[in-house]
């Protein structure tokens, strides 16, 4: 299989994905969850049909700004508003009982903006730290500079697309950036490297067997031999994650979706980004073998 002749196609696909992601990040940005922005989220299950005016009334009565109301299933609503203190919550509870004394509180969360700032700091730290460790790991496994830098670039490629993809999901479907998304980013970093390492291992092994072979031919052989594994393995993870996205409920739907984007991207980038990059570096380095 001469997969490497598809390199121009890979370049186009990756460019489109990267540019779309970057544009979306710049223009649409993200919908931060209260994890980052601070605020309150209140999920209530009403026992009867309730309209938004009635819900708004709960808040106006207590001199609070109107909440952002989202319907989450029959008579269940998610209300988002600024963070409040315990006594305000007690007041809200009693106003809620006036409207519907059988309403069930599914979930309530309120947090101040300080925690969000801390989370942002921790997130950046975690990403930098993981990248450094993975860099060290790749460096120690592949002494060859071309391999190391290609794996890292492929990893960043995946991360940008994941973050951009999430920005698009946020814009169209209201996916919120929360603490779990950070977890998804880190998991993507590792699964991207994971996949690339397997393919690189094969190139190295083939190189040892036949020193004279041309890099492109070598890459083709390695990809052909590992493609089955790569696709099959991704399929099993994709099965698991898709079933979570579709059946797993709302709490972690976007988390699973982010992991899914990351895994698919990671599989593609090993063949479509990391190896073409290696070939590029090899072509432009002075050493021919």
């Amino acid at each position, binding site marked *: 299989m001469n997969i490497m002749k598809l390199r121009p196609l890979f370049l186009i696909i990756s460019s489109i994905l990267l540019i779309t992601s970057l544009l979306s990040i710049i223009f649409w940005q993200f919908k931060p969850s209260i994890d980052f922005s601070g605020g309150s989220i209140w999920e209530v299950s009403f026992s009867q049909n309730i309209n938004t005016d009635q819900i708004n009334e709960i808040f106006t009565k207590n001199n609070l700004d109107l909440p952002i109301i989202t319907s989450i299933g029959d008579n269940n609503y998610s209300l988002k508003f600024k963070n409040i203190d315990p006594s305000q919550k007690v007041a809200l509870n009693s106003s809620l009982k006036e409207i519907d004394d059988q309403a*069930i509180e599914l979930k309530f969360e309120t*947090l101040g903006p300080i*925690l969000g700032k801390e989370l942002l700091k921790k997130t950046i730290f*975690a990403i930098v730290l993981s990248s450094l460790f993975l860099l060290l790991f790749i460096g120690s496994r592949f002494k060859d500079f071309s391999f190391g830098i290609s794996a890292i670039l492929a990893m960043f490629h995946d991360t940008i697309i994941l973050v951009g993809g999430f920005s698009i999901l946020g814009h169209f479907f209201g996916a919120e950036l929360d*603490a*779990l998304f950070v977890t998804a980013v880190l998991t993507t970093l590792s699964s991207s490297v994971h*996949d690339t390492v397997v393919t690189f291992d094969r190139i190295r092994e083939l190189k040892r067997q036949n020193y004279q072979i041309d890099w492109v031919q070598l890459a083709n052989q390695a990809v052909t031999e590992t493609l089955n594994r790569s696709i*099959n393995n991704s399929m099993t993870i994709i099965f698991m*994650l898709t079933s979570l996205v579709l059946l*797993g409920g709302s709490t972690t739907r976007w988390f699973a979706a982010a992991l899914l984007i990351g895994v698919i991207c990671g599989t593609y980038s090993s063949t479509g980004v990391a190896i073409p990059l290696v070939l590029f570096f090899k072509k432009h380095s002075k050493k021919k073998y």
Partner: protein
Amino acid sequence: MFNQKKTIKIFWTIIGLTFVCLIINIPKVLPLKIHLGSFNWEHTFYRPEINFKLGNTEIKKNLDLKYGLDLAGGASLTFNIDTSKVKSEDITQALDSLKSNIERRINLFGVSETNVQTSKQDDQYRLIIELPGVEDVSNTVDLIGTTAQLTFKGEVEIPAEATATATFYDVFSQDIGLDGSHLVRSSVEINPNNSEPEVALEFDQEGAKIFAKATNDFLNKRIAILIDDYPLTYPTVQTVITDGRAVISGSFDAKSAKELSAQLNAGALPLPITMIQQSQIGATLGQDSLNKGLFAGIVGLVLVCLFMIANYGKLGLIADIGLIIYSLITLTLYRLIPVTLTFPGIVGFILSIGMAVDSNILIFERFREEIRKGKNWNMAMESGFGRAWDSIKDANACTIITGLILFNPLNWSFLNTSGMVRGFAVTLILGIIVGIFTGVFVTRNLLRVLAKEKIKL
């Protein structure tokens, strides 16, 4: 070539291990009813508990799965602690007494398995309280936030016929009007006569007056000192005290004296706390999340199993058996360690199932290649396992590195400490380690024993 005898031994060990894991994972009480025509069989299985003595140490283990607040329902509260008024060398002690005071308050509400902890973020101390099963905390938040109530109660005469039924609170029922606001400070002193530690109390002017009257009224009787209605001590009044200084002596050692003094100080001068985060999940939502997560996991698992069989035939079937053993071992570890399962934790578990078969896929693809090269079945299998090992090791190392950063085992304050993220990391790391074990060791030995050369690829 491998040693046939040894392999058979390993095979039975694996079967035994699986059986033990299976028993640990059956529900606590499992009623079974089988009705087949005239054949009726009913039996109730009970999961054995780990509860035995080994030498002098008693080994007892609760094998129930632990669920986090997001699955079991419950509330979590985070407070900022104002330590600006406390000298830096006293902070640790003040935090400890704050913690024990709050724990005592919560226990009064009758909430079980609460978790109270303090943490430090940059220069800010935090208090985190987790209350499993508590649905509405709004009313209790205020109670937790208020300062500890120090009260003094005098002993009253109990009629002789009632002594048998009198409780502590009946005996000490007379409030003497003295409370924490009258206490200036409490400290530990060493009695110069017998060099035993004592706890000294110092009251303000008004407190001194009340205390003088009380010690007069209750001379040779006992006065109980309570924090939040929880009795700390009840010394007998030996003299009338007019200077507002009292000493509680008794069977103190240095540590218990210090603790009592800290608690009294906390009652008098608590660290002010302000709530910065509150979250509560209703039990219905938690149960719903759990059911959905489990359902999604089972659907995914079935899909993966079918996929493996479709792709690798009987080899895939053996990988599936390995996968089931994998799930059993992982669940057993959750119970033994124990791991508190959260919803992201379930996602981590489900993701790790997908990753666990990766080892098998790597091995089987290698195996096919070796067969294509013309090696015989056994040779191909052994070299498939051998050569895939390098890739398996490298690939999983990456995930473990990231997992550890997410889990933050050393509790670094610059990394994530959120329970959600950690819940995911811990199941992912465990999953990967068990996955390597079952994917490589278990399936290899299952294959050696169960698979014969007849298997076609």
